[in-house]
């Protein structure tokens, strides 16, 4: 079964932040994940860009304050990107 976008984001975040995927929810945020600092934020954005073949602007990057908002942004990007 193809993993959902949430599951893929969850996996990337788990690798980056060094916490089990099961502990990462849509509500997980820069406030609740200690390892989610500004450099890891950029690493997360770059990993998402590579995985989904999309590109984020700095303005979009700033909106990614939680896993939920990040997933939503990725979904919007994929819906709007030319196939």
């Amino acid at each position, binding site marked *: 079964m193809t993993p959902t976008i949430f599951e893929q984001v969850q996996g990337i975040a788990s690798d980056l932040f060094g916490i089990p995927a099961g502990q990462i929810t849509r509500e997980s945020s820069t406030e609740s994940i200690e390892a989610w600092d*500004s450099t890891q*934020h*950029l690493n997360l954005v*770059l990993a998402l860009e590579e995985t989904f073949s999309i590109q984020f602007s*700095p*303005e979009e*990057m*700033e*909106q990614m304050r939680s896993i939920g908002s990040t997933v939503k942004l990725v979904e919007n990007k994929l819906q709007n990107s030319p196939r």
Partner: protein
Amino acid sequence: MPIVIQPYRAEHEAAVQEFNLRLKAAGADPDLVFFRSAQPRWLPHVEGSDLYQEFFVALDDGVVRGGYALKQQNFSFADGSVRRIAYYHHPLSEGIVNKSYAVVGSLLLKHAMNRSPLLHCLGMGGYDRPLPKMLVRLGWAHCLVPFYFSIVRPYRFLREMQALRSSVGRRLLMDFAALSGTGWAAARAQRTWRRFRAPAIKPFTAEKIEEFSGWVDPLWQQNTSVYAMTAVRDSAALRTLYAASDHHFTRLRIRRNGNDIGWAVVGERRKDEKYGAMRVGSIVDCWASPEDALPVVRAAADVLEQSGYDLIVSNQSHYQWGRALEQCGFLQANSNFIFAASKSLAALLQPFEKNQSLLHLTRADGDGLPRNF
């Protein structure tokens, strides 16, 4: 309001001034000041030029929260390709004094990466600084560009080199070496021994010139492919970097049997408290086939010695230029001049471990020009 990053325009200058004042008021290092003028004083964008600077600011509802600069420059690669590479410099974020803006540093870098995927940083002052720490964590390829120095006047070096005179014991020891003459003897012996062991240099001539012209172009063309990567150093680029009107530099044309073999640019390094009151000369830039590095380095060092400098310094990434410096009596010391390449740029330099010593990077690259060489 989300933070937006825009080209720095004259209408932002007042907000940049306020940004600088906020950093200063919060106790930031006095050197951490963003450019007052939106128009770069050095390398402004001129129609048709490949070598220019551009500035950007991060705006939060009209308030400047950070900024950065890019130097756009053509670089040549060993496969003969020439690509536009950007040098990312002077990133400054309000995050250094206000945690609410901690993300600004990452936003600036992301903006630069979107704009110029082939991005590099050079200099940065050592791995303990925030920017190189961030680049390492982002997985950028990186290495140190070796630093070399030659002591011309051992007495002055021993009495003035503040970076080494860091304790009472060291100061006493250095003063003893200076006053007794043992320092002079040791420095002379080391230099003489290195020069004695160096291969014999075929006779050459070095001529001071006012400006670079077309004679450098064949030298540029003949030698580009021996370097894994080098900033384009043709006559047009050199006239821009070392304009005839800039009297801080001495330009040297080096010939053998009437044929051009290379060139060098030397100059006086600006005062730095770690060097005390010493006059420090710098081999800023140079070009030749690596086989002819030795006469070029010798010519540059001789001119600086004859000009009365106490110490001569240089950064060179290519191993044969480093070897030439050592053969002229230079010693290698710890470097804080870091080269870091974005993943896209590093992909062009694979295998990086091997190619890092085949890059041609000097003090003229990165943060070296116009005055920090």
